């Protein structure tokens, strides 16, 4: 059951590049402004090759001036939503939704660990500011490849000071998630937003620590995998079809475009509705969802077609057609 989106009109007020690949976009709503809670996102309507599509972006900061701010990373090998967002200039119109929240912050816990990977910093930034405002005890770990990739780091540091730990791969550092969890109060909560590899590692470490699963909160954007996005071929013996999925399209989109009827809902690898049985895979299956468990992913019996891919070669799947 998809949420009905309450579309509104907005105008781009300003843009600012936070890094060579991350752009802060300010959206001035033309109608009423809805105050976002920390961790909220807005949906935006994007045009990709002449077709309207929807993307979700986390809101950056509390937006107390009535302007929605999002940070968009330009992703070259993906479906084209970010390229559209980067084409916007001050004065451009943008259709967007009111804020909604799938990654809400629960206040009142004795301690918090926030972990951001790359562009996953956007909701974590809002969480950190809210926790600082509430006077909560917390730590933020922000992992990035290089200093040049850091977005919002100065703003974050200004608000949370020494509670921020920046971990850069180029400096030979890696996030020690297990150690960070060990430092967290036993009643504390762990919030993670980052690429799927980081998320899986966080889940594994959290599970190993014996802490209750409901105190690990995470949000994914379904666009990151263990492997780069490359074209691959989908074979459906039942339908006698062979479909090529380009690097910039999801498997689900390619199937639908070829007339394969699918059901789906979340489009970010959470609900599992679009999962199809795998009959055979030539290349490694890049599971980018959070619906299947690690054990299920290892079995390779199914994949979530909205986000997951195959790294080269071909995959044979079955569909629900009878």
């Amino acid at each position, binding site marked *: *059951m998809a949420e009905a989106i309450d579309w509104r009109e907005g105008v781009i007020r300003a843009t600012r590049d936070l890094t060579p690949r991350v752009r802060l976009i300010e959206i001035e709503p033309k109608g009423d*402004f*809805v*105050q976002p*809670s920390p961790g909220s996102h807005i949906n935006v309507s994007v045009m990709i090759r002449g077709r309207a599509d929807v993307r979700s972006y986390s809101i950056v900061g509390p*937006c*107390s*001036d*009535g*302007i929605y701010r999002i940070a968009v990373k330009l992703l070259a090998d993906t479906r084209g939503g970010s390229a559209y967002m980067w084409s916007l200039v001050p004065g451009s119109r943008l259709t967007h939704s009111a804020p909604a929240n*799938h*990654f*809400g912050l*629960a*206040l*009142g816990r004795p301690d918090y660990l926030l972990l951001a990977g790359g562009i996953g910093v956007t909701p974590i930034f809002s969480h950190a500011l*809210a926790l600082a*405002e*509430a006077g909560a005890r917390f730590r933020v770990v922000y992992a990035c490849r290089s200093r040049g990739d850091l977005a919002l780091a100065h703003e974050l540091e200004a608000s949370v000071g020494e509670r921020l730990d920046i971990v850069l791969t180029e400096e030979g550092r890696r996030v020690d998630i297990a150690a960070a969890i060990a430092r967290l109060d036993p009643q504390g909560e762990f919030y993670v937003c980052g690429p799927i590899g980081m998320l899986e590692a966080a889940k594994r470490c959290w599970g190993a620590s014996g802490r*209750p*699963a*409901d105190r690990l*909160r*995470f*949000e*994914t954007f379904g666009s990151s995998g263990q492997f780069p996005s490359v074209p691959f071929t989908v074979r459906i013996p039942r339908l006698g079809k062979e479909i090529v999925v380009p690097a910039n399209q999801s498997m689900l989109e390619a199937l639908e475009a070829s007339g394969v009827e699918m059901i789906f809902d*979340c489009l970010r690898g*959470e*609900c*599992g509705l679009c999962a199809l049985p795998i009959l055979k895979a030539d290349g490694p299956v890049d599971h980018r969802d*959070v*619906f*299947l*468990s690690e*054990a*299920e992913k290892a079995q390779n019996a199914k994949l979530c077609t909205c986000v997951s891919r195959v790294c080269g070669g071909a995959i044979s799947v079955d569909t629900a057609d009878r």
Partner: protein
Amino acid sequence: MASGKTFPLNAWYPAAWSHEIQPALAARTICGKDIVLYRRSDGGVAALEDACWHRLLPLSMGRLAGDQVVCGYHGLVYNSSGRCTHMPAQKTINPSACVRAYPVTERHRLIWVWPGDPALADPAALPDFHWNDGAEWKGEGGTFYGLKCDYRLVIDNLMDLTHETYVHSDSIGHDAILDTPFEVTHTDRSATMTRWMVDIEPPPFWGRQLGKPGRVDRWQIVTFQAPAVVVGDVGVAPTGTGAPEGDRSKGVNGAFLAAIAPESETSCHYFWNFVRTFRTEDAELTRDLQRAHVNNGRGVYDQDHAVLEAQQRAIDRNPRSPFYNLNIDAGALWARRMIDRMLAREEEKSAPDRAAE
């Protein structure tokens, strides 16, 4: 106030008596929010959005398993923070799956919930309702759940006791109420109506409580705490014993207590009690006083109940600006001013601060 909203959300509202919340699911609607309440095994109270994330079935139709709620439709399980801990037929849990958890506090024998922004829920903002603790003041009250009127009509009713003369003429009404001047004062969160009727014949109810013949000094000191609590310090003492000067020792002192929660714009839950400091160990008097207030339509509050609901029906049918005001309405108008101020603050907070740029 431009919004037309009738109640602020950022406030503590009563949702239940403490004894009503057991390790079992209890549904309440507060400020238009459907909430399911239950007592956890650690004695605390949980207040969750009463709609399953999946298909919106009220969770109150499900069951409690330990400290967790199991939806009665497909078995999704939520912990007392509102987080889903089990989904049927899958190994993982959708990270988006949760229901809202409302801030909740238990004090003064009531369960209070905060329907607004949880970040603003401040226990220091709980109204003072200590008369209801059962310690110094004794009494057993009740609740009119789903009273069919705007909660502000109840506040109007309690802040202006001239109505006693007409609505409760057989018990506490008295012409002296009409003839005696009153004073209304306020702070930034409260409004107080004070009326001293010196040297009068006691009304029937108070004459019986005092149990002495002769004329009395009667007081009504009614204090509103924004947005929805009213406490009325009331009583009589024999004239000449110094009550107006501060010595009430020869008299009898009671307090009517009202904590109100809007259910919708036009209905509310009215938690009431009448407590006293005289004959506090007299259980029969406690029962009698409770019955005197609510008794199958014959109690004092039953009389108010009928008036309030009829008034709301009339307002619904006459969509003109509903009221004209009299000087007796000063207390009620100060109370409404404070509610409006809370509403304006709330609006300001959610509205963008463009002026700051």
